[in-house]
């Protein structure tokens, strides 16, 4: 009989190489004589056991995980969609409804004899986990994010792999731009935080990098590209984060002058006003490419890397980080901790309360050294340096 039974699961968007976190946790738990089980696809394994007739919980051991820590994918799967507080189901009246099954889930975990759940979460899954922890679920969590936008930790799991991939793709995009004599505008992930765009753009010495944190003036970007074109270089590379916004955005069209009741009941529900707030993949690349073509009189080509950055083999940095995060989470459980997140604050892995991470976004500070270095490298950030 093992001394303790703990579980591990993954919530939110996929990031590459999650097996290394499982391996780290298994190695550390095995040394303590604990049993580790995995919950399939977020919480789906427990919420929908009928979908997993073979195994609701997966037994995980160092032997099973041997050789898997550097592999792509995740043996447990993940779940970007399931929220135990709003589980979509069909009721007896043939209506589709969203049901709160959180109590049932917490009770189910306890019934399985699971003492603590190690949850690997992104920003959204963190909120759900926090709510579950307030309901009595004992949990230690590990941050993952390809955008590195989780607060308090310097490095979220998955970012380094996404960064390497993105830089590699940008290098290829530059070669394509060079051979086709065009300006490539490549959109990368990053809705609120532009780390991926900035660091990958710096790695390949892009001409310009546009970030959510720094509203851009497209004329400044065009001026930078025109310099290159005048000097005889007939191509360019611009990196744009998904959430980048122009400094002086186009004024919003006025809402239709409907009788008062409409605006009272459903203001802004018309398509004219709403289309300006959609964070839609590909939109920024298209917009920037079009404007640059107009301002430089040079052909441009928009490209979106998007979700491709969520796949692939983890880098050595992520493998180490994953093993460390997994082992540190187990050691937190051993110390009786709950409601905490393991964070990387070089040179240490530390524990912080979930509330300290909740509702915070790790953005690039205006006075960041990264910003200064980029400007020193003559990379345009869409503003006068």
């Amino acid at each position: 009989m093992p001394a303790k039974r703990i579980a591990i699961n993954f919530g939110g968007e996929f990031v590459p190489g999650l097996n290394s976190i499982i391996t780290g946790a298994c190695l550390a738990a095995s040394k303590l004589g604990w049993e580790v089980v995995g919950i399939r696809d977020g919480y789906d394994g427990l919420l929908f056991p009928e979908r997993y007739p073979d195994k609701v919980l997966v037994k995980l051991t160092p032997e099973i995980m041997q050789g898997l820590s550097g592999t792509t994918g995740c043996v447990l799967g993940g779940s970007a969609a399931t929220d135990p507080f709003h589980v979509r189901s069909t009721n007896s009246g043939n209506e589709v409804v969203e049901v709160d099954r959180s109590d049932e889930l917490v009770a189910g975990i306890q019934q399985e004899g699971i003492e603590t759940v190690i949850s690997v979460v992104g920003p959204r899954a963190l909120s759900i986990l926090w709510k579950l922890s307030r309901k009595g679920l004992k949990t230690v969590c590990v941050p993952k994010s390809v955008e590195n936008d989780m607060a308090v930790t310097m490095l979220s799991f998955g970012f380094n792999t996404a960064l390497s991939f993105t830089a590699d793709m940008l290098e290829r995009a530059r070669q394509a731009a060079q051979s086709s004599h065009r300006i490539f505008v490549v959109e990368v992930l990053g809705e609120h935080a532009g780390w991926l765009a900035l660091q990958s753009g710096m790695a390949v010495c892009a001409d310009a990098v546009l970030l959510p944190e720094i509203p851009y003036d497209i004329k400044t970007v065009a001026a930078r590209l025109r310099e290159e074109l005048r000097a005889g270089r007939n191509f360019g590379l611009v990196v744009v984060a998904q959430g980048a916004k122009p400094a002086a955005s186009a004024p919003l069209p006025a809402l239709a002058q409907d009788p008062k009741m409409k605006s009272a009941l459903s203001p802004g529900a018309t398509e004219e006003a709403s289309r300006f707030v959609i964070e839609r993949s590909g939109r920024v690349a298209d917009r920037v490419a079009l404007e640059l073509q107009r301002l430089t009189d040079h052909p441009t080509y928009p490209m979106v890397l998007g979700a491709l950055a969520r796949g692939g083999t983890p880098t050595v940095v992520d493998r180490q980080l994953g093993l460390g995060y997994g082992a540190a989470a187990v050691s937190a459980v051993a110390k009786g901790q709950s409601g905490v997140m393991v964070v990387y604050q070089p040179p240490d892995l530390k524990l912080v309360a979930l509330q300290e991470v909740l509702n915070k976004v790790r953005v690039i500070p205006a006075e960041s050294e990264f910003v200064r270095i980029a400007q020193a490298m003559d990379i345009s950030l869409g503003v006068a340096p």
Partner: protein
Amino acid sequence: MSAKPLTGTVLNIQHFCTHDGPGIRTNVFLKGCTLRCKWCSNPESISPKPELAYNPAKCLGEEQCGYCLRDVCPELAIYVAGAGDRPDDKVLINWDLCTNCGKCVPVCPSNALYLFGQEMTVEEVLAEVEQDSSFYRESGGGMTLSGGECQLQADFAAALLEEAHQRGINTAIETASNVPWEFMAKVLPHVDVVLHDIKLTDPERHRKWTGVDNARIRANLKKAYETFPDKEFVVRTPLIPGVNDDEEHVRATLEFIKPYKNVVEYELLPYHRFGEGKYAFLGKIYGMMDFDSPTPETVQRLRALIDEAFGRTAQSQMNQNK
């Protein structure tokens, strides 16, 4: 002491509509739906309860305003990203923590935070609807109840439609018909024109795309056609690329309605992306945003099948479209 008047949860009242029934109409949208169609263009109509929406374009930001950040939200669902490092300091909503309590709505001076849906009485709705009554007379229009699924609030819908009839207003409803038959039996007697969807004919595919199979819908429709021979029924299909924009669906639908003379029209509504922005307001993700509308050629080809079934020539249909 008088009894509490009957109220319904109303999402919106839209004036001067021309696509949902005869003439110029006033559309009353009721909240709550029993389906979850992946292409839904009115996501704010799905939940039966009032729901918070947030339009960041209208937010004045933490420095200029910031009222909603001062201990207003009991769930800590309103926050700002970073500290003074952002291009703007507009607030963000943690939709996973928000419970739609609406406490933040009255403190927002710019109406960036608002609630979709409010309780209204029959009298209040009709007072708004009757502002357009002169247009109904001129155009042969009236009031159309839409949603969501307007028949879900069966008692309120029936009372509203009955009172509209009393006042001489032509009535129509737009429905998916996935409700208990008793609801339809209450509502339909007060309706002149029934606009109802047939989204997919295959039960399994219907379940995949809308959340439930179509057995009850088909049974309800047959019963409605037979129980109310004097009412006009108009079938509609929202044409969704890769889902039902094919001849197979149109032919199967025509086959279904063939025996019923009171089904007077079959309309195709090409999918559009008007709903996209509203998903963002509600913190939801639109799963179908990467598709374009069906091409005019596809729509024309499918409409030709319908014209043939209804015994119309292509020319007469073109004139109708004009």
